[in-house]
């Protein structure tokens, strides 16, 4: 990926008319000048602010406990709610890195207090606990303007839904072995795979149509980044369940459902970028898709591999280094899981790996030859 340019270089290099360049320059001038601390803040300043405000808020919480303000469930719930509402309302004020971190700390502590107040001594049912988290996170996602809080909400909601499904599946699995129990298990398995698939599809579409969505959101574009990154992160975390050691609750696998959806998303992004951008013919496009499908066929029950490949392609087509790093890291993780869980001897695994390696190196030579031939023609 290319190094990022300066604002001046981007405007000068763009194919815009002179008057358009002037209006964009003056707009950015006024917007960035009034918001310089937010635009120009190095990332580690945000890390310091989060660490510092969390430590400070933790001490305040201990102070409140010591004062016996939080000695009953009602007082905990009320105090927590006040903190959540304050955190959400104040996030709409113009703020800098310090204020944002303080508000994040207030919101987080408020959520912990409300959850703690609602569940303590009442019930030990996991489903209730997860539902409470979902019901708290939804309004926070919709109304809080804080980036980190929105990101956490987007990640937490699908994870909690998945945990509810896992819990129901576990209860079915340990229950009597009847035909209806089997159908319920299959249904729960399909629902969980469709949940993950829908998250993958939505996150792909969000990144593919980044510009269009930005224009549509306009002054609500603070939803975009946390939602886009949050969905990718939650899909990766959910796909970790596809590894044998993490999915003991599911009797029926059906991971190929997620693989099919991920493959559909990958085909779509290849269509949008390669076919449309480079005028690739339909025949060549279908050949490329077929080759990818053939290579990835053995991994049909490991959707993590094709999804990480999808993230890598998405990241590269959008010039997004963070997403690219995420994709590459988890591609390595899911590949390791795949080979680890192969029910074969170490000798056979080594032969499979060496053969796969040779195949990819061969593809590399074929690809470079085709490109060289295309350039000379």
């Amino acid at each position, binding site marked *: 990926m290319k190094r990022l340019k300066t604002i001046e270089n981007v*405007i000068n290099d763009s194919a815009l008319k002179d008057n358009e360049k002037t209006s964009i320059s003056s707009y950015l001038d006024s917007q960035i000048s009034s918001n310089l601390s937010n635009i120009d803040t190095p990332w580690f300043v945000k890390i310091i602010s989060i660490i510092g405000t969390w430590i400070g808020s933790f001490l305040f919480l201990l102070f409140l406990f010591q004062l016996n303000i939080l000695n009953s469930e009602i007082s905990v719930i009320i105090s927590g709610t006040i903190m959540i509402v304050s955190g959400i309302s104040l996030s709409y004020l113009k703020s800098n890195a310090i204020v944002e971190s303080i508000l994040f700390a207030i919101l987080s502590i408020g959520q912990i207090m409300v959850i703690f107040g609602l569940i303590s001594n009442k019930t030990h049912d996991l489903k209730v606990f997860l539902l409470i988290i979902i019901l708290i996170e939804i309004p926070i996602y919709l109304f809080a303007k804080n980036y980190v809080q929105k990101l956490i909400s987007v990640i937490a909601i699908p994870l909690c839904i998945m945990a509810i499904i896992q819990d129901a599946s576990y209860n079915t699995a340990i229950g009597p072995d009847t035909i209806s129990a089997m159908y319920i298990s299959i249904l729960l398995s399909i629902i969980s795979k469709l949940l993950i698939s829908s998250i993958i599809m939505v996150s792909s579409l969000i990144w593919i149509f980044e510009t269009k969505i930005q224009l549509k959101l306009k002054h609500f574009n603070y939803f975009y980044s946390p939602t886009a990154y949050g969905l990718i992160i939650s899909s990766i975390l959910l796909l970790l369940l596809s590894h044998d050691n993490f999915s003991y609750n599911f009797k029926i696998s059906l991971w190929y459902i997620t693989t099919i959806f991920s493959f559909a998303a990958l085909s779509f992004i290849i269509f949008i970028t390669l076919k449309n951008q480079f005028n690739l013919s339909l025949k060549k496009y279908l050949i490329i898709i077929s080759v990818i499908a053939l290579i990835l066929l053995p991994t049909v029950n490991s959707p993590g591999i094709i999804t990480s490949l999808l993230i890598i392609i998405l990241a590269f087509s959008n010039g997004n280094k963070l997403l690219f790093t995420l994709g590459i890291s988890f591609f390595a993780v899911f590949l390791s899981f795949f080979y680890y869980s192969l029910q074969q001897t170490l000798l056979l695994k080594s032969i499979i790996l060496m053969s796969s*390696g040779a195949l990819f190196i061969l593809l590399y030579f074929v690809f470079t030859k085709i490109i060289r031939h295309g350039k000379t023609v």
Partner: protein
Amino acid sequence: MNDKIKNITFTRKIFYLLSQMDGINKEKLDKIYSAAGFKPDKDSWYSFISKLLLSIGTLFTIIGIIFFFAYNWRSLHKFIKLGITILLLIIPALITIFSDLNKFHSKLLLLASSIFTGSILAVFGQIYQTGANAFDLFLAWTILITGIVAISKFQPLWLIWLALINITIILFSFQILDDWAFPYILFILFVINSAFLAVFEIFQKKGDPLFKYRWMPRIITIIALTYITIGSVMGITYEFNDKGYLICLITAIPFYCGMFYIYSQKIHDLTSIASSMICIIIMVFTSILKIMDFSSDSFSILFLGGFFVILLTSISIFILIRINRKWKEII
């Protein structure tokens, strides 16, 4: 356009800001998107796909070979085991001898030779059951690759050598010395890493191009700060029951101040200043919790402590942003 703003990097944040502009449409945004380099061109795609295929192919082949040897390792004769590991050292070394040391592939081969030196020692120890400690292995490894490190002019290799020195000292303290030496070991590790940092920064200040990249001194700074901060925090927690912890604390405070002065005035690097500030916040937090042990008025301490930490954080951020803006004005 304002000079300060012209030179700001065009990130996604700026692009999202632009999308809020009245009168902007998809066509204009797409042009900006392409100009910003977010959309790769044909050549970038070709390069990416070919690198991806080659990397995956090479990685799979290497791992396959490793698995193959792992499967057959027990049944291999000891001379073959040693022979393979020695060959893994000799082949890259021979290629390097006949190559230009300034080329990147030569440096990578020197790195490979250094790593395989460790594997020879490990295999030797495994075959002959020498009964040596892990400390002996790492000490021998460090000494043997010193020559390679000296000629390599390759920062990753220097970092590996420094890591080996650190591991050797830590293993020495756990396997040879008793627990009493722990605070002194922390101090010694801090001194060694700070010495490396000082040498690096002196050469960097002289303008040596070999020392122009900042990632290595930043890592060493964080390592040095970690040792001295751990020593100080443990001292506060255990009420300086050992003189070594007191030495750590007495050294830590001027070190943080020194970091701040040097990296704000002499060498411009916000990461080192920020790391020092995080360590100060951690020390203050530990002190507050410790004060509570001695005081009956925990309410005031918690209230004031929380307030003080947030104030300290705010001051740190304010200073960092101010320094950052000042440097940009100078540039």
